[in-house]
């Protein structure tokens, strides 16, 4: 356990080293945030509600979605990909710890850094510039935090499963970026799934994506009630367990395909 704690701590310390980069990342996310807020401002110029959401709810949703996307940072795809390409994965297997847990801890450290260095400043900017709405209730806020934790686990498991492709293909290329783009669209990060055609909404109900962004954000702004919120969090738990077993299965097979080169 001490070793895993050390990995998290090291990742946090590394994150704090690159301060100028952090400022620029915040600036970039701020540009995205400003563009998104003004887009929704213009959209609501002549209407009071869209898909049951008021302007204030929608702007809060959009801003928090951008903040969450800064929080949901994973590096497992790059780490495993480069480990296989350079042969350093062999060293990881020699360490007295589970390789996947090692990458999970590193990503937890990355997330903690993002929380402090990206999410908090972005949240402050959001509060000051766009007057974000408060959560509908204390219970909603509590469920929001729990749901965000579940969302992170789903996203990490999806990233880890994507990274397994490297064991067969050797080079992941931009597959990780494809995963991010697909998740961003289908999760309601760019625009709530409630704006999608009904057929697509029906299909997405049976996939894990919308439970990563829309569920916590919907709970926070009150579009998803507490009962429905609890149900959707149950679905999040189902996806965590399901994806965990898929990862275990693929991981077992992937190790048989491991071919170490370089190193």
């Amino acid at each position, binding site marked *: 356990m001490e070793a895993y704690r050390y990995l998290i701590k090291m990742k946090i310390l590394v994150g704090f080293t690159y301060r*100028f*980069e952090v400022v*620029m*990342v915040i*600036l*970039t996310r701020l*540009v*995205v945030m*400003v*563009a998104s807020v*003004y*887009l*929704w*401002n*213009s*959209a*609501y*110029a*002549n*209407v009071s509600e*869209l*898909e049951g959401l008021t302007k204030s709810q929608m702007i809060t949703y959009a801003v928090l979605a951008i903040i969450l996307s800064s929080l949901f940072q994973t590096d497992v795809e790059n780490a495993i990909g480069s480990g296989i390409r350079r042969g350093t994965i062999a060293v990881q297997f020699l360490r007295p710890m589970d390789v996947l847990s090692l990458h999970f801890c590193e990503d937890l450290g990355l997330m903690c850094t993002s929380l402090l260095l990206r999410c908090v400043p972005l949240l402050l900017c959001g509060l000051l510039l766009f007057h974000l709405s408060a959560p509908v209730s204390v219970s909603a806020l509590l469920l929001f935090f729990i749901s965000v934790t579940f969302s992170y686990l789903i996203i990490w498991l999806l990233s880890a499963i994507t990274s397994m492709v490297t064991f067969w*293909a050797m*080079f992941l*290329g*931009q*597959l990780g*970026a*494809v995963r991010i*783009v*697909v998740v*961003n*669209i289908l999760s309601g990060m*760019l*625009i709530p799934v409630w*704006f*999608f055609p009904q057929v697509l909404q029906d299909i997405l109900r049976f996939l894990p994506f919308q439970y990563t962004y829309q569920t916590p954000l919907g709970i926070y702004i009150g579009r998803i009630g507490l009962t429905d919120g609890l149900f959707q969090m149950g679905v999040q738990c189902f996806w965590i367990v399901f994806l965990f077993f898929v990862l275990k299965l693929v991981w077992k097979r992937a190790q048989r395909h491991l071919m170490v080169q370089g190193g």
Partner: protein
Amino acid sequence: MKKIRHYLTVGYWQLKLDALSSFQYFSFTIVWFFMIGIAMFSTFFVLKAILDRVGRINGWDFPQISFLIGLSFISHGFEDMFFLQNRYIEHRVLEGQFDQYLIRPLNVFFLFNTSNFNLVGFYDIFPGVIILIYACGQLQFPITAFHLFAMLVITVSGTFIRAAQLILTGSLAFWTKKSRVLEDTNLTLMDRTSSYPLTMYPKWFQLLFTFLLPLGFITFYPVRGLLHIAADTAFPVAPDLLLWAPLVALAYYLVARAVFNYGLNHKYESAGS
């Protein structure tokens, strides 16, 4: 004349060799193709979902915004195809890689700006063309010689404004040794000012991206003029005139070139090994 022919031959061979090497990594480029396609169509999809419900955003309907997005993606693609190396000036400065250009008997700015051909840029152009064709169909946009010429002017101008922006920020590396971190901000700014109507932003933002960093001329102003969309900004001069786009592009590119040359000649230290 002989000198120009010599420069063109050198540029042609640099680009040809880069194109050939890009094809060596076929699976890599295919994944890029899908990633860029999905990412670009998602912008289109988000705006469609909103405009289907509200009709217009700041006087722009969906086909008009599609026209804007289409041309924006195309100029983004050409910028990626020919000017991508400007995003990595930092690396060249840190490694002292400009030495290899400085010892050649050709203009360094020219050599550097023809030193890369990135096939992936084509994958940005592809969705852009599809969206532009869709927009033209929806708008019943007349396909005359003048209109085709106007679209060509907007594309070329937009490409050079984007390139100038990359060169300017990339050249900061001559002074600060760091510029790569600015590139994501840069790309986000260029995309958000050229794919959405600029008038949806506050006045100070519009002024900034019209007069200081002229990103509004990548697509917004020339497209607004071409599609005869009512202007709701009151600037002393009408920026919608098509002629402004190439003039602004030329001026901005020359400024960027001057900054690059100054940085290279006065601040570059041939560090690295």
